[in-house]
Structures are given as C-alpha cells and as structure tokens.
C-alpha cells in the first residue's frame, strides 16, 4: 500500500517569497492533517480536513498560510509571504478515522523549508 506522498522534499527560498507544498494522502483516507515541525520541537498541527471541509485551522497563521483540499483528496499548503521563522519541516498526515477519534495517523516524509 502506498504511503502519504509529499513534494517537494526540500525547498530554499528568500523571505517574502512564496512557496507551496503538495500532499497526496493514502487512498480512502478521509482525514488529512498538515503539521509544522521546527527543529528540536514536536510537530504542531496547522490544519485538519475532513474530506474537503476544514475541521480545525485554529493554529494556522491565516495572514500568510493557506491550505485547500479540493475534491477531498490531494491537498496544498501555501505560504505567502514567507518569514524566517517559517523555516521548518511541513508534515502531511492522513487517517481513516472519520468519526473514530483514536485512529492511527500515517505521516509522509515531510517537506523541509529553509527561508533565508
């Protein structure tokens, strides 16, 4: 079974530029998450989708971050304009859950962003 796919794996940009990350979850997984992991810290949830609807985006800095999950499958996370403090690994995860609150999350390998 294919896992969660993310791209690009690495991205280097200058501050105030924009960047987009793409995620393809495991087939059939209704729930999709984007996490931000700063070096030395645990992952921090940015946004949670259930199919193509947003369940929780309370931690998403909406002035510069946006995310969408059109058609309830693939998702894109965008940062515009980027700041130095956005340097982190952006992890995408998916789960079957859809009502089960203790379901296993499957993570991709992440997209490492460096903002200069």
């Amino acid at each position: 079974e294919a896992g969660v796919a993310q791209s690009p794996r690495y991205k280097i940009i200058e501050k105030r530029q924009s960047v987009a990350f793409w995620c393809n979850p495991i087939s059939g997984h209704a729930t999709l998450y984007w996490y931000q992991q700063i070096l030395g810290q645990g992952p921090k949830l940015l946004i949670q989708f259930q199919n193509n609807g947003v369940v929780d985006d309370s931690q998403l800095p909406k002035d510069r971050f946006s995310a969408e999950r059109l058609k309830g499958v693939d998702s894109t996370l965008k940062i515009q304009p980027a700041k130095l403090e956005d340097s982190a690994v952006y992890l995408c995860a998916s789960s079957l859950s859809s009502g089960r609150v203790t379901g296993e999350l499957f993570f991709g390998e992440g997209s490492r962003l460096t903002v200069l």
Partner: protein
Amino acid sequence: LAKTTQPISMDSYEGQEVNITCSHNNIATNDYITWYQQFPSQGPRFIIQGYKTKVTNEVASLFIPADRKSSTLSLPRVSLSDTAVYYCLVQGNNQGGKLIFGQGTELSVKP
C-alpha cells in the same frame, strides 16, 4: 486538553531494555494513550496504543496503571536502530481525534 510530560532525553546501550515513562494527570475517561516514534528526516510512526493495563505488540509493550495518570513504554533489547524521538500522546474526544505532540523523548542507543 490532557497534557503529557516525559523526559527530554535518555541514553541506553544495545541489548538493554528501555522504559520511557509519561505522565498525563488530567487524562479523560474516554482518552487513549498513544506512542509514536520519529527517526531523523522522517515523519512520526505509530508504535502502540492502549487504554488500561498492558498492551504488547511486536515492537513494544505499554503499561498503564489503574489510575491511568501515567504510562510506560517498554522497548525490549534495543538496538542502534531504535535511536529516535518517542512521543507520548493522549488521544480522544477532547482532542477531536487530533494528535497534539509535546517535545518527546530523544532516545540514544549506544554500542
């Protein structure tokens, strides 16, 4: 939301048993305890989940006392490849099914 506390780091040697304890004093009745493992440059990976007493799988054991205010992840006979960060999480209705990560325990296994 239930908060978890675990040691920041631990050292061990190959072949030893490693026990990582996590406290979660305000765990709710319907919450489960879940552990994830993360290697460098990879996303976290599910290890084990339990509600009470003892759970064992091919990778680890999870011990949960009756009051459920703490739990212990036990890794038998660790090898160098078990060097990773281990996260203890409380998962349930109060968290809406989301995983809320703390800082984790960085386990270093030495030869």
